[in-house]
């Protein structure tokens, strides 16, 4: 259940405003602690959106520089986490569009040849298999799954990716994407449905 995460956000609200105050005063340690706390989440989001660790690192770096510059304008209407993720999401979408426009990409000569995800390393199996072979989904399966996720229409892909973060509620996803709560729910359902069908067609499910 996600409610504990929501409560945790409320508890941290005052700590966040104190940290923002310190950062605005030029406290480097306060900024360092902000980066330490949000870097894994922001990197994961950028990576899931872009599929390339190098691109993800650059987007996150740009995002934190923008965050540092714009922190004074943060009004606290959304949580700091939501605000940060909105910035990362926006920059990731821009990067994805720029990449799609590039001549290399249009000619199909981009590094991933269709699939933006570069890393074919096996990853832990969702079912937690009993022997080492069962414990990892193969690089090939992973590539195919990511390929299918990448082929989803943008609005469905975005909600699916955000929903893959356990501690993000539908409400937070709605705020990050600036869409109604009901739309989040229906898009997540549509994304699951489409992906399930596509996986079945490829005999991956």
């Amino acid at each position: 259940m996600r409610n504990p995460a929501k409560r945790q956000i409320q508890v941290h609200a005052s700590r966040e405003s104190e940290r923002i105050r310190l950062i605005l005063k030029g406290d480097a340690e306060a900024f360092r602690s902000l980066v330490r706390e949000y870097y894994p989440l922001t990197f994961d989001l950028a990576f899931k959106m872009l599929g390339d660790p190098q691109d993800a690192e650059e987007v996150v770096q740009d995002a934190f520089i923008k965050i540092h510059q714009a922190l004074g304008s943060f009004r606290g209407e959304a949580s700091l986490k939501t605000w940060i993720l909105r910035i990362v999401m926006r920059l990731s979408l821009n990067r994805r569009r720029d990449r799609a426009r590039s001549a290399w990409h249009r000619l199909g000569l981009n590094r991933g040849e269709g699939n933006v995800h570069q890393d074919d390393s096996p990853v832990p199996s969702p079912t937690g298999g009993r022997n080492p072979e069962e414990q990892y989904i193969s690089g090939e399966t992973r590539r195919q799954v990511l390929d299918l996720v990448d082929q989803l229409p943008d609005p469905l892909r975005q909600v699916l990716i955000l929903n893959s973060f356990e501690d993000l509620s539908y409400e937070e996803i709605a705020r990050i994407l600036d869409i109604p709560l009901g739309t989040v729910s229906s898009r997540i359902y549509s994304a699951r449905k489409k992906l399930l069908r596509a996986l079945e067609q490829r005999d991956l499910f």
Partner: protein
Amino acid sequence: MNAHPWKRIRFERQLSAYLDGELAADETDAVGERLVFDADARQQLRAYEQLDALTHSALIPAHRPDPEVAAEHLLQAIVADEVDRTAAAEDPPRRHLHPALLASIGLLVTAGVALAGLRRRGLV
């Protein structure tokens, strides 16, 4: 599961939100109750669970940069950016005269020199 397509879609959507823990308490109870008796609904829920596990595993980055190192790089980048901005503010770019103004000044000087020469010779 329910035979009517519209109702089936509505239930599947509920099931999707149920999996994410996003239903209201009464809806959660209703779905939970249905899952006890409806084998198709249980199968659908299992399919969603497996799908989520598969996609989430596939999306996990194999390597993630160290946040400590990233924080240091970011601080260096921000300090360098601020130094550049301060330097730019302290040393404003030199004002360049517009080419048309320069040409006018040149013409005036030339005309002045010519006029002085003519006066010296007593021609004006």
